[in-house]
């Protein structure tokens, strides 16, 4: 990282030239600055210093202390030596050259020298450095050390121990960056060997990075091994399409087939890291299962191939019919969160201009119309940058499993914690982030609002102090006054910490401790999970979050994550309900009732993603017309009348907007050789068919339009997007500095949507004020079964997505599929005991809607009364249990016969195999 403050500069001499660099710079970096490449193996700017390989030695002389004779220069490792004024570095001194030559000799004596069959060949620092610096003849006459070759460290990474030069890059990465020390050197000295305990498969979701870090062919990718030579590859700079982080990547292809994905450095987004999903899940692009041409439902009820004119014509005619017969409000459009900005923009225009429907949404299952609930408070959904977290004094994670949801951003949060940020994790269930948390808040599912109100009440009890003004000349400044939170006290309407504790299940002293931590932290940042945005109480949550930010000194501390590779882009492109329009969840609910007649689904597999599979099925069955744009014939597509074959993101030119609102350019890595068309082009032609031509012939035209047209991107109109991307903001970034001007959002006491008991504030005269604008309170849901005590039998179901599910885009990568966990239901130890279930047994989880049979994982992650099933693994998906109409899901869990379990557990994933090793 480059220090921002004007640093002390140091001037030294490297190979005769004077170089001036910031104090603290390593000699190897200073040399690079001067254009001199000192060879390295173990040194890596992102990792701690090891000084292990001794390759980078240079002759370094220090100026003698005043009055003392000069000392002769010494051979020092330039990767561990920091510059000092007047230092004289000779990178090419004969002693240094001899030392480097000997290091290469030592590295090669036991190396198998199997470069012809090594994947690293051609991009191997060991090979390059040997060529440049190594001895020209071999004099080793002893027997070479034999070790494991081609040994899998996991389904994804293969180790060749004989090639390993023990530079500790991989082990340092695992221990320092994701903090998962699951790979290490065993034994010592000459017998050092890279291993996992009992040679069990690595579990990390970041392990692919060690392949990039390895400076020789010791660690290779199972999916890329023996597939290509580096000089055969074509490269395209793109952006990862697997999650909202928006990591920068290079698509390497050979003969128009994706060969591998590599990270591309963008210090603002992914630095140089990728998660394994982003790195490995690219085989779907060239999968033979891909849809190659449009499909149209025949009279026999079977989908059959159709030409583009036929499919477009049919769709146009039938959409027109429905529009005319039932009115445009009978059409619902869902999709866009996994499409490019260009697709989203064209789709939004098509929906508004040709279909003329207000029922547009990109958020599967959404219950509220406001796509960005913070907009009501004049804020964007995400108000900081990823990088800002590094200088945060405290980080709050609310209702998110950030490791699974925003994997590469988690690495940065982790870095922030390593830099000293205090981490507060609030979740109904323990997550990876809990390991680093200072405070862990385990609240009742759905009780986020109560937690926030508790924190606010605690802050009102003992308000934080204003930031100290700069002290006056010579004198001590007066201690800053406590912040005036009287407005917030009113907005809270008399809710006490104890009330909130009772409602949320989090102890009052914990709430107070968290509030104290937050009050004492500089630049706290708050991140809320994407699933909170689409909940019925999203507006209330947003108000509480904004108040929390305000109470801590800056309302812009609040950030919502988003779902899909381009959820934020879809939101900014206008794929959100218009005034009076329906949200995605409502569209499906109304279609199920036959009120919505036509569904237009762009890359949205609603049967898998709508939180009520049965309702989604009815919606598809009851709709008169279902039109889709898809890559695969998904289960949803089987119900469609018309399916357009689309191109995938790696095949596209265009832009994506990541969760922080950063617009980034992507270039197509492979051409679609079948009859797939980009989504923007499909809607553009369809629109023209319907008599409303959008007039786009190339992606750049759409980009140009959307930059000019959309408020968020307006400042970018006519500019080229820089390589590190650029942040788009819809709302003015200015925040009034005057604390008295803070707008306290009214807080509406009401039921939490998933069954925590409604908040009952203590009677207070000021209460009415806080209730202004309150929605009519929804009927109180019955006390969930688990609260009725043992014997009630039921458990509250919590679901969330794993980073790696057996999804359409993952399934074609068989190696990655092996990393997908076997479907499971997670139970607390005491619930498991009460239900007579043991770890590894099978259990049936059921509601009135249906049931799934999964293997039981007993651990301490869920609190008593709560169980967890991931919602993107296993067939059927857990959404068969959910009821969209009722926000809380109480499930019955009971032992299932082994035979059922085996039948239900194995298909779909090879996770069963991988899970053996757990």
């Amino acid at each position, binding site marked *: 990282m480059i220090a921002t403050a004007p640093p002390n500069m140091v001037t030294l001499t490297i190979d005769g030239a004077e170089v001036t660099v910031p104090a603290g710079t390593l000699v190897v970096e200073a040399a690079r600055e001067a254009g001199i490449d000192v060879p390295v193996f173990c040194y890596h700017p992102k990792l701690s210093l*090891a000084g292990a*390989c001794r390759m980078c030695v240079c002759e370094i002389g220090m100026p003698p202390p005043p009055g003392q004779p000069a000392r002769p220069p010494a051979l020092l490792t330039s990767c561990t030596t920091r510059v000092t004024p007047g230092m004289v570095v000779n990178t090419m001194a004969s002693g240094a050259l*001899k030392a480097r030559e000997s290091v290469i000799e030592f590295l090669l004596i036991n190396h198998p020298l199997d470069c012809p069959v090594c994947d690293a060949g051609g991009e191997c620092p060991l090979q390059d450095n040997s060529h440049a610096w190594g001895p020209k003849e071999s004099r080793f006459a002893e027997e070479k050390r034999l070790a494991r070759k081609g040994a899998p460290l996991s389904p994804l990474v293969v180790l060749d121990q004989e090639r390993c*030069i023990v530079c500790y890059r991989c082990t340092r990465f695992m221990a320092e960056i994701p903090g998962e020390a699951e790979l290490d050197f065993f034994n*010592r000295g000459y017998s050092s060997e890279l291993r996992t305990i009992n040679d069990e498969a690595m579990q990390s979701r970041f392990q692919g990075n060690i392949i990039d870090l390895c400076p020789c062919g010791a660690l290779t990718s199972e999916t890329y091994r023996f597939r290509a030579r580096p000089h055969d590859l074509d490269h395209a700079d793109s952006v990862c399409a697997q999650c909202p982080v928006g990591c920068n990547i290079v698509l390497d292809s050979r003969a128009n087939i994706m060969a591998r994905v590599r990270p591309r450095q963008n210090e603002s987004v992914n630095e140089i890291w990728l998660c394994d999903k982003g790195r490995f899940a690219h085989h779907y692009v060239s999968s033979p299962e891909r849809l190659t041409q449009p499909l149209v439902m025949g009279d026999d009820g079977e989908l059959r191939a159709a030409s583009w004119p036929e499919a477009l014509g049919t769709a146009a005619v039938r959409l027109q019919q429905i529009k005319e017969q039932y009115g445009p409000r009978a059409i619902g459009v869902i999709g866009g969160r996994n499409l490019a900005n260009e697709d989203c923009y064209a789709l939004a225009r098509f929906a508004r201009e040709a279909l003329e429907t207000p029922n547009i949404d990109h958020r599967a299952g959404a219950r509220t119309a406001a796509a960005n609930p913070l907009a009501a408070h004049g804020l964007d959904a995400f108000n900081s940058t990823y990088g800002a977290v590094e200088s945060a004094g405290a980080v709050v994670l609310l209702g998110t499993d950030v490791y699974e949801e925003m994997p590469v951003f988690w690495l940065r949060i982790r870095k922030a914690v390593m830099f000293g940020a205090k981490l507060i994790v609030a979740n109904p269930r323990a997550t990876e982030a809990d390991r680093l948390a200072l405070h862990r808040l385990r609240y009742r599912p759905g009780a986020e609002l109560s937690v926030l109100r508790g924190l606010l009440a605690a802050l009102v009890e003992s308000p934080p102090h204003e930031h100290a003004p700069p002290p006056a000349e010579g004198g001590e400044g007066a201690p800053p006054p406590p912040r005036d939170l009287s407005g917030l006290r009113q907005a809270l309407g008399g809710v006490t910490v104890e009330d909130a504790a009772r409602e949320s299940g989090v102890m009052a002293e914990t709430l107070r401790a968290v509030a104290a931590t937050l009050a004492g932290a500089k630049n706290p940042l708050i991140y809320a999970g994407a699933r909170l945005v689409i909940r019925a109480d999203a507006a209330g949550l947003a108000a509480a979050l904004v108040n929390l930010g305000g109470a801590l000194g800056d309302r812009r501390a609040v950030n919502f994550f988003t779902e899909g590779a381009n959820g934020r882009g879809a939101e900014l492109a206008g794929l959100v309900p218009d005034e009076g329009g329906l949200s995605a969840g409502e569209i499906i609910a109304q279609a199920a009732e036959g009120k919505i007649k036509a569904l237009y689904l762009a890359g949205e597999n609603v049967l898998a993603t709508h939180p009520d599979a049965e309702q989604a099925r009815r919606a598809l069955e009851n709709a008169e017309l279902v039109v889709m744009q898809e890559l695969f014939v998904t289960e949803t597509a089987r119900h469609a009348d018309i399916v357009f074959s689309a191109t995938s993101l790696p095949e596209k030119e265009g832009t994506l907007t990541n969760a922080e609102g950063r617009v980034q350019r992507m270039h197509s890595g492979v051409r679609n050789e079948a009859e797939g068309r980009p989504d923007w082009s499909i809607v553009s032609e369809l629109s023209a068919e319907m008599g409303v031509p959008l007039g786009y012939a190339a992606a750049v035209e759409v980009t140009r339009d959307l930059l000019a047209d959309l408020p968020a991107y307006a400042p970018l109109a006519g500019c080229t997007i820089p390589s590190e991307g650029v942040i788009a903001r819809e709302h003015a970034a200015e925040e009034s500095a005057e604390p008295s001007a803070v707008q306290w959002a009214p807080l509406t006491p009401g039921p939490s949507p998933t069954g925590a008991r409604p908040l009952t504030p203590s009677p207070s005269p000021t209460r009415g004020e806080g209730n202004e604008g309150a929605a009519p309170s929804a009927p109180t849901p019955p006390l969930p079964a688990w609260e009725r005590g043992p014997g009630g039998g039921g458990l509250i179901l919590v679901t969330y997505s794993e980073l790696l599910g057996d999804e359409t885009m993952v399934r074609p990568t068989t190696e990655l599929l092996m990393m997908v966990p076997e479907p499971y239901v997670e139970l607390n130890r005491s619930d498991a005991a009460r239900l007579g279930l043991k770890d590894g047994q099978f259990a049936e989880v059921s509601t009135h809607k249906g049931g799934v049979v999964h293997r039981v994982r007993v651990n301490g992650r869920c609190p008593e009364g709560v169980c967890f099933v991931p919602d993107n693994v296993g067939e059927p998906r857990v959404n068969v249990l959910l009821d969209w109409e009722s926000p809380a899901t109480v499930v019955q869990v009971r032992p299932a016969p082994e035979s059922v379990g085996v039948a239900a557990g194995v298909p779909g994933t090879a996770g069963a195999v991988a899970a053996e090793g757990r």
Partner: protein
Amino acid sequence: MAQTPGQPIQPAQPQRGPGLPVPWEPVLSAAVGRPNSRDIDDYISRGGYDALKKALETMTPQDVTKVVADSKLVGRGGAGFPTGVKWGGTARNPAPRYLVVNADESEPGTFGNRYAIDADPHMLLDGMIICCYAVDIQQGHIYIRGENLHGFEVLEAAITQAYQKGILGPSVMGKEGFGVDIYVTRGAGAYICGEETALMESLEGRRAQPRIRPPFPIEVGGGLFGRPTVVNNVETLMNVPHIVERGAEWFAGIGNPACPGPKLYTISGSVNKPGMYELPMGVSLRDLIYKYAGGMQRDQKVKAVSPGALACQILPGDNLDIPMDTATLTRPPYFIPPFGPVGFGAGGIVVYGEEVDMVQIITNIAGFFARESCGKCVPCREGTHWMLDMLRRIASGAGRPKDLEVLRDVATNIAGRKTLCALGDFAVNPVGSGLRLFWDEFEAHVTKSSPARLLEPAAAG
């Protein structure tokens, strides 16, 4: 003379001999052989903890550091760094600070720490607490090698007694605001743990691989748990109470003025009376062998000597009048490029008689360092093993004439501070010097196949 288990062997009694520079009376090993010498009451009855009391009552921490600096005490662990400078440097860095006692003593040929701890553990604690006072430290850790179980138990018992007497705890000897805790941690069989930064890694629960320097242990970021830390050898600290009590001048007047003081010499190998002898720094090799260690077994001639245990360069047996001390053996003419100083290490002298096959012994030594390399640095990890492979081949009669040149060059490629810690240099010292001194013997091995009497047990791990 097999001894009973659990009952440690008593070290050979130091002898007083004529010809010593000053009237000589052992101080570090005075209690050896005394019944109950480990007991705190016995120690106190001998004037123990008086020095601590003197320091606490009559001296400021700076005074204590100054007297140690003035005494010219240098570390006895091997590096020979001035102890007073180390303490002063640490005290200048911010608190909290730690004291770490290096009781890892693992180098073949050294065994002074073992006997010193066994005979007089309180002398060590005394020195430690004085150090804590001088440097303002509240926590001391003793890291003792895993093999020395007995020493561990002795230290634990001594610490318990010291707590009971109020000599350790929240206020040492009733001194308000000065509290010290001492803990003992066992190693588990790794020579590299004697290297101070590897030791701290081990103490922190890691693989004992040396750290990069700077930051140095005395600095923030370099010491134990990242705090400024004094690392001292057992014997170094045992000198401290005597210095505080008798003054810097007394100490500086003992032995070689360049590195004065009493020294626990240990001598073994082909001598008749191997053992530990406390003598002034600078006693001659001849006196050590013939006056104290009872001369050579079977009256052999001295063929060669490892003066500071195996990590040093081997000296020929033809000059026995060299003073055995840190100052002499690290300066010209005992600084021999490209391998640097001969070295005195911790003063464990191994003597090789005429009957010893030096090729075999050097192979054996090379095996030790190859097995004990931590494996972090490339030259040390690969080079030590390459040297061992070549030496084994040569020793077993399968050597080729050109092997010797390769061996010499490989040794130079490791030597000269090209590695993180000194183990790389240590490994090269005996091989490089051995080749120089016994070239003929090596040549004989590679030209005519010599009978292989392998002294070194088969394959190394």
